[in-house]
């Protein structure tokens, strides 16, 4: 079966090389190779889920440097997720990259980027993991800075700094594990780690949360997401937000849950709190963004928070001995991981189509796109409904499971868990409400109403391959929403290997949790909603009798002819929220009025408002300033005077002479 893996990897490698050497016109069609590669690897991922762990290969270069690749159910699940998104994004890229400069390089980096993500989740030892991890970071850096604009370079710098801070913690935690266990292989470490003192385990856990959390984008380590996602080309943002940040989740699961095993209760509580804070603040900041891709990036922070709420609940329940419930919570977390990959991928692809045809990322310049880009609009709507967790799309199922598992906290012995877990549920409910507000804004402002700019007016529907890429994801949103039972069966081996228990559902396409006698059937909800809809239509027809339809202009308040400037703007739409959460946003407003004749004739009024980027200003700015001031002091060593440098050499020589002899 590993031959399928090799076939898939070869397809990706060929897919990486061909764009570099082929002629210009055929370059786009090279994306067919990653598409087929994704299919083969999806099969391999599914295979891994249903077999015992497979040793794929180990290449020993020196006794220390050994590349070990191993697949188990957890890697299988992540391979499956990566493959699904890669499949549709590759199809989308055929059309999307047509107008791109440097197509060949793009195709090359695209395939290598995906390969490196597969390598990360298949790594069997420390060295392999770190090399794959760094390859992924470096390649994604090149993709972030792909359009070679100054803004992208800045975003790339922030991304590079943040990701390397994270990697530093990861390297530290691996070195600690190596020092105290003496192994580099994850499975050896897993057996040896049981004898470690608790203090060491705690350090490893904290480092894992910080290191992998940076990649996942937990608050306050999220700052690179809203910079890097908008800067990258949209097919790459879809991959980065959909699956690359999930490798952070994979790392947390692999180290904090799989390798370290069940820890003290406060580990789970910590993850819960981080998840709650990330989800609430993520969506609050998303609401204030008018750049459609920045908004989606903040939304990723929110969804990572929701995933961590599920994982945290699972850890809390496991340390309270409730393994069955812990499995349900882990199912919720993994389900949301899968779902977020799909709907966030879909939303980024949709945003990419919009940006591609309107040439602006600012929502205030869009509007009326539903008439010009109907397919994109429909698929974007499906993505929005899913992310808002509305019924019969996939987000609904996973968030329902997350709610349930957070409420299981009551069943745990410890009082802390009893208090914190339901509060996580409250945070999730709050997040859900704000998410709806957020996506009403995105969809309403960008797709409805009248075009707000010439760009929006001249927008065109995107090419068939782009629509196909989005259609596949939209379909999957529906499928995973209506058939949750089969989906859960698919990845229950991963849950089993993470928590030691399995979530057995009823098997009749109803999510049934026997512990609290509560069940959910999305299919039934779908049928019921459709029935109610048709019943309503029929009822209106029967009771209301024959009715006449007349067409007229919209009411324009008596002012002749409506203009786009009279529309509700994104800023105005979110104003109530900005007022309610004044304490968090700390908004600053600026009104400038210029008169032709003061105070009677007003020439123009300029209104601008901005919110305080809290973490940038109160956390990163001071740290950056501190480092900068140290660097400024070190600069005195570099006076530029030749004699001084020679003096350093002389001093060093003399010191060596004195101390070494």
């Amino acid at each position, binding site marked *: 079966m590993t031959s399928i893996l090799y076939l898939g990897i070869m397809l990706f490698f060929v897919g990486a090389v061909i764009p570099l050497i082929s002629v210009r016109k055929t370059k786009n069609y090279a994306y067919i190779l990653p598409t087929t590669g994704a299919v083969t690897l999806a099969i391999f991922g599914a295979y891994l889920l249903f077999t015992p762990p497979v040793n794929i290969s180990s290449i020993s270069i020196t006794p220390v440097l050994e590349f070990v690749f191993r697949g188990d159910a957890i890697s299988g699940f992540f391979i499956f997720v990566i493959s699904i998104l890669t499949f549709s994004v590759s199809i989308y890229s055929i059309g999307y990259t047509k107008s791109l400069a440097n197509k060949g390089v793009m195709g090359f980096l695209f395939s290598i980027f995906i390969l490196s993500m597969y390598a990360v989740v298949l790594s069997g030892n420390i060295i392999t993991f770190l090399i794959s991890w760094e390859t992924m970071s470096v390649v994604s850096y090149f993709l972030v800075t792909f359009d070679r604009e100054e803004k992208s370079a800045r975003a790339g710098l922030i991304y590079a700094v943040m990701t390397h801070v994270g990697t530093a913690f990861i390297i530290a935690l691996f070195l600690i594990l190596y020092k105290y266990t003496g192994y580099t292989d994850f499975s050896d470490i897993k057996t040896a780690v049981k004898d470690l003192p608790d203090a060491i385990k705690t350090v490893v856990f904290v480092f894992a949360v910080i290191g992998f959390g940076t990649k996942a984008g937990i608050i306050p380590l999220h700052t690179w997401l809203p910079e890097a996602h908008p800067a990258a080309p949209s097919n790459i943002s879809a991959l980065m937000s959909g699956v690359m940040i999930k490798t952070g989740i994979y790392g947390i699961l692999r180290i904090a849950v799989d390798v370290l095993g069940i820890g003290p209760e406060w580990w789970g509580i910590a993850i819960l709190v981080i998840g709650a804070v990330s989800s609430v603040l993520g969506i609050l900041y998303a609401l204030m963004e008018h750049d459609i891709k920045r908004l989606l990036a903040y939304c990723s922070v929110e969804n990572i928070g929701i995933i961590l709420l599920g994982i945290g609940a699972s850890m809390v329940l496991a340390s309270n001995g409730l393994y069955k419930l812990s499995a349900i919570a882990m199912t919720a977390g993994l389900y949301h991981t899968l779902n977020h990959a799909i709907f966030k991928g879909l939303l980024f692809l949709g945003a990419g189509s919009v940006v591609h045809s309107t040439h602006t990322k600012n929502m205030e310049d869009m509007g009326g796109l539903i008439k010009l880009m109907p397919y994109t609009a429909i698929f974007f709507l499906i993505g929005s409904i899913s992310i808002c967790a509305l019924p019969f799309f996939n987000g609904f199922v996973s968030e329902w499971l997350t709610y349930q598992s957070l409420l299981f906290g009551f069943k745990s012995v410890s009082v802390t868990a009893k208090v914190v877990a339901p509060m996580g549920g409250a945070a999730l409910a709050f997040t859900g409400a704000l998410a709806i507000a957020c996506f009403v804004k995105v969809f309403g402002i960008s797709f409805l109403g009248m075009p707000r700019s010439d760009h929006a007016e001249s927008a065109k529907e995107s090419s068939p391959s782009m629509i196909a890429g989005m259609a596949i994801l939209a379909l999957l949103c529906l499928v995973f929403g209506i058939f949750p039972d089969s989906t859960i069966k698919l990845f229950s081996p991963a849950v089993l290997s993470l928590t030691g228990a399995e979530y057995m559902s009823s098997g009749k396409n109803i999510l049934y949790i026997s512990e609290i006698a509560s069940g959910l059937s999305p299919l039934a909800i779908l049928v019921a909603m459709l029935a109610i809809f048709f019943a309503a239509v029929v009822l209106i027809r029967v009771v209301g009798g024959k009715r006449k339809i007349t067409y007229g202009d919209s009411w324009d308040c008596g002012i002749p002819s409506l203009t786009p400037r009279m529309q509700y703007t994104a800023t105005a739409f979110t104003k109530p929220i900005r007022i309610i959460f004044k304490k968090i946003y700390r908004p600053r407003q600026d009104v400038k009025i210029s008169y032709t004749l003061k105070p009677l004739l007003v020439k123009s009024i300029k209104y601008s408002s901005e919110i305080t980027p809290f973490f940038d200003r109160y956390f990163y700015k001071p740290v950056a300033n501190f480092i900068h001031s140290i660097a400024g002091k070190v600069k005195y060593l570099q006076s530029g005077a030749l004699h001084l440098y020679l003096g350093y050499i*002389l001093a060093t020589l003399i010191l060596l002479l004195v101390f070494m002899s």
Partner: protein
Amino acid sequence: MKNWIDLLYVIDFISVGILLSAVVLNTLKRLESCIKAYIFNSWLLSILVFFVAIKTGNLHLYIAAFLTLATKGILIPMFLSKIVRQMKVTRTVEPYLSNSLSLTISGILVTIVYTSLREGILVTGFSVHVLKISIAVALIGLFIMITRRKAITQVLGLLFMENGLFLAGFSLTFGMPIIIELGILFDMLMGVIILGVFIVQIRRNFSSVDLDSLTTLKG
């Protein structure tokens, strides 16, 4: 054997001359006399090699002695004096430190070297004095480079350093294989020629060879 030990005294004696010619550089005011000190230093070096060559009868040492004499003793000094003549004015060395202070520091350098190395006989049969002196000469050369303002004195300091290092290598191993020796000498020659051309060019363009002006190049 007795003969050989006598020769060792001669070698120690010559190397003291090498050290003195380096120390005296601190007090010299005119560039021409600095070059003369370098000539003296190089000649002593090649004589030292020549004595050892006679004693051991090693052909490659004869060649080394000859090459040292030809390049360091004749070619490089000739070239340097030509540059000094071309520069016409300002033939003084303009050090940062006063003569007495730089002499004192040179003395301290020599003391440090002498106290930090143990007494004894090297593998080659030389006494450790030769090694000590060679390191001291290299350090003094570096010190000269630090305290002098002019580009040409930098070159001189570098040449003294190279002589010191040559002596160090020689005292430890009887010198390197001839092909490497040749390479180093050729490098030196080329280096000095290039530096010389640069110095003349710098002077032509900036009407100064003061290295302080280079500080403005810092980013």
